[in-house]
């Protein structure tokens, strides 16, 4: 195999892994959009918030330490214990469910039947509120997140590829874990939506509110459930991204990368979010590898958006989205 091709293959594989992470975030968007028609701008911040909370709980950080210290003149920062990762994840999940309940109870319950743009604005509000509250609760410094996921180069792949091509591929163990987790997550979500009573109810609510009410489905219950699910997906995404590049506020910006993913995959399709994420991940890495050097690099910043733009023009419903049919 010629060298260029070998390098390209490695880039391709790394692109796939990056794509999985994009897809995870996009998945959260799809869930909420499908069930309630809300485009949740706060999805990225939810991932950040989840990661912050997880780190905080694990390290036994005192929430709102700055505020407490400022008001009471104390100097508490840590409870002085460490919580095992698994327990911390469960606790964080409970926080996310609580958040889902609060968001629905305080905001969306009062915005039933409002214009989509209003709902969208509300999510922007929630995003900034969450970012602020996250900062206040856990502090704004960059934190390291380690829940025990394997990290670093996968030596087995390195060896195998070295023996085969005389060049060892660098594949991060974390990326492999992320891929497996994403696959399991998607599979579970699809089974949930198709085969359980709650899943059926969720699809029913997504389809027609009035009809859902008339068969005995509580809209509030479904919305809390959907926001909790999105919270769960955010937590998973937060863990992956946080482990990879540290828990920092720029994490909320990954939400913006999820946008082109959604345009590719369609806003209403779970498989679409996955495939869209992979295409963007691979596309931007390969593009950078092949074209980047010629144009002075940094194509990764804009490639995804240009690709999404092209899609908007030729296939506005995305790859897997429901066909937009205009009846005449």
């Amino acid at each position, binding site marked *: 195999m010629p060298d260029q091709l070998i390098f390209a293959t490695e880039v391709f594989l790394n692109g796939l892994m990056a794509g999985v992470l994009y897809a995870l975030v996009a998945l959260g968007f799809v869930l909420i959009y499908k069930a309630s028609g809300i485009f949740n701008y706060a999805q990225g911040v939810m991932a950040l918030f989840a990661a912050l909370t997880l780190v905080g709980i694990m390290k036994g950080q005192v929430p709102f330490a700055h505020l407490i210290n400022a008001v009471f003149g104390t100097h508490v920062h840590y409870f002085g214990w460490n919580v095992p990762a698994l327990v911390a994840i469960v606790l964080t999940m409970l926080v996310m469910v609580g958040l889902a309940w609060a968001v629905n109870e305080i905001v969306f319950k009062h915005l039933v039947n409002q214009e989509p743009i209003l709902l969208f604005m509300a999510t922007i509000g929630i995003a900034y509120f969450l970012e602020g509250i996250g900062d206040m609760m856990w502090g704004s410094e960059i934190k390291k997140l380690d829940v025990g996921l394997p990290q670093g180069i996968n030596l087995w792949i390195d060896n195998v590829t070295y023996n085969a091509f005389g060049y060892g591929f660098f594949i991060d163990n974390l990326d492999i874990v992320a891929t497996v987790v994403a696959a399991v997550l998607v599979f579970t979500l699809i089974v949930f939506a198709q085969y*359980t009573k709650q899943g*059926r109810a969720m*699809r029913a609510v997504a*389809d027609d509110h009035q009809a859902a009410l*008339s068969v*005995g489905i509580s809209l509030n219950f479904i919305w809390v459930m959907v926001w909790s699910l999105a919270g769960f997906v955010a937590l998973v995404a937060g863990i992956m991204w946080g482990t990879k590049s540290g828990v920092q506020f720029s994490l909320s910006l990954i939400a913006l990368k999820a946008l082109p993913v959604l345009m590719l995959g369609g806003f209403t399709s779970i498989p679409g979010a996955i495939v869209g994420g992979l295409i963007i991940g691979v596309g931007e890495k390969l593009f950078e590898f092949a074209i980047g050097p010629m144009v002075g690099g940094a194509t990764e910043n804009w490639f995804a958006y240009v690709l999404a733009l092209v899609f908007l023009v030729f296939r506005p419903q995305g790859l897997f989205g429901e066909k937009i049919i205009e009846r005449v």
Partner: protein
Amino acid sequence: MANGVRAQAAAGGGIVGDVVLEMENIILRFGGVTAIKDISFDIRRGEIRAIIGPNGAGKSSMLNVISGFYHPQEGQIWYKGRERPAMKPYEVALQGIARTFQNIALFEGMTVLDNIMTGRIRQMKSGLLAQALWKGKAEREETENRESVERIIDFLEIQHIRKTPVGRLPYGLKKRVELARALAAEPSILLLDEPMAGMNVEEKEDMSRFVLDVNDEFGTTIVLIEHDMGVVMDLSDRVVVMDYGRKIGDGTPDEVRRNQDVIDAYLGVSHD
């Protein structure tokens, strides 16, 4: 066809029992407009009860009051002997009052089978965890629910569209699927909001037959709204007549037909 069936049913006589729902002095206002003006009537177990009246008489408002979509400002609702507090529509549905809509409210993106299965929500007891494990009880429950849904599919003769997304169906069939979904709940009371609206003669006859058969086979109590007098008189055991939000008649079809107020209301208003 409907006439033949009707003759048989009348000859046999329906089995009508106690009062299951009682509306007492209901008053409903929207801002300054009073849609329902102090109306009382009752519904007996096993009967077909019609609410008729010209357009704008307040029939649909009454149905929405029963199904919890509207809440009356005054008056009481007695359901199975107990006074019913103000409830959300989904709570009313869970209590066993199922309904259809004049403009059809189905889950367009879901298949006919899935649509009807949602009607079984009331009968689905097992929690998410049990379902996740997908064993024993949850599985048996799913099979039981599927079986009773299949019986309804057979009953309403919609086997051929079982796996078809509802959005692709013609109007008449959608109406039938909506009826199927309401039936799947095994309701104590079935509310039908203009089940024959927008149908041609043949479809109307089919629907009439289904309504009668449902009442006959399952003993379902049915409350229906129609403005097509002919259909109503053929189908129902008792009729409430409304006009401008007031009740102007209540009784068997024959009694109502002889009621002077009713005759005036219907002669004064053009109806189709």
